[in-house]
């Protein structure tokens, strides 16, 4: 995810060309929105998180040590935004708090029994039912193609924990998907 283009644009922004930040925004807004949306499962919240992420990135771009790691740094900000929203939602009692149990399905999320024929909907529905900590690592791996080490750094977990969570999330999803794709 280290791109020389990002490095150049980040340097331009740091040099005072605030319009150059628009390039980074256009390049990553889709990824950041998708990441926020998949974790929050709410369009409006994901849009807010997207805007806050880029606003904060712009405000603090001078603190970015390694300009080549812009994407990784951006996702760290997005993750903080997502978890801020999730904490608020949880404090309102809408989502069950995270725990350390082996049960990885978030039972708080209602499982729609309606028959869904669209693969995209099925995948999104099942992803939405995974607990946040399992959903997050799988999203970062499958959609953002981050390595285990990068995911561990981003989430603050150990690499072995990331390995284990990805495996459990995958195992659980393949099991749930079986009836749909027999």
């Amino acid at each position, binding site marked *: 995810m280290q791109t020389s283009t990002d490095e150049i644009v980040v340097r331009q922004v740091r040099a005072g060309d605030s319009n150059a*930040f628009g390039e980074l925004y256009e390049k990553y807004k889709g990824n950041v929105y998708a990441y926020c949306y998949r974790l929050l499962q709410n369009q409006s919240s994901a*849009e807010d998180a*997207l805007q806050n992420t880029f606003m904060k990135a712009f405000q603090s771009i001078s603190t970015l040590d390694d300009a080549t790691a812009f994407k990784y740094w951006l996702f760290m900000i997005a993750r903080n935004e997502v978890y801020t929203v999730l904490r608020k939602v949880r404090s309102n009692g809408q989502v069950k708090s995270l725990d350390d149990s082996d049960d990885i399905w978030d039972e708080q999320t209602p499982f729609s029994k309606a028959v869904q024929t669209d693969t995209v909907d099925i995948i999104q529905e099942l992803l939405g039912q995974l607990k946040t900590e399992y959903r997050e690592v799988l999203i970062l791996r499958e*959609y953002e193609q981050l390595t285990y080490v990068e995911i561990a750094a981003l989430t603050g977990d150990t690499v072995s924990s990331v390995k284990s969570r*990805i495996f459990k999330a*995958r195992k659980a999803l393949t099991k749930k998907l079986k009836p749909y794709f027999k």
Partner: protein
Amino acid sequence: MRPPISFNAQAERAIGVLAGILAEETNMDHIHYQEQASQFIDMELEDQDATSLFSHLSVCPECREFLKESLQLRSRMAHSVVSTLPQGVASLEWATIANNKSRKLSHISLNSSAQRKTAGPLPAIVFLLFMFVVGGLLFSTRIEIQRPQEYVGSTNSNVSQVGNLSR
């Protein structure tokens, strides 16, 4: 005294225990190799582990099935990428966010740092200037008023002094 257990019964019990242990170990093996299979499709598996994984896969249909399903899951997830952004996000440009941001920043700055910086010195300077001007005006007026009094006073004293002298 316990009745003696027949050899067959003892053997059956032992076989049952061994089968349970074996099944548990096999299950643990499956989990171990399936976790490795998960790492393999993420290209995170060490070479030496890959060798043992493929040895196991060659004899284990259950783990082969997991690998196949995991690859299918990856393929399906790749097709479920959010390809179209919602209108609100797609049409939203950085300039709009930046404008909102600068508005918020100006609001914030008025309430915080900029205000703190200007709140003290600026009104104080204005007040001092005002006091200086007013004070200057008052002082000059007072001088003008006091001069005749001093003159009168001095005249009276002079007169009284003259009167005293004349007496």
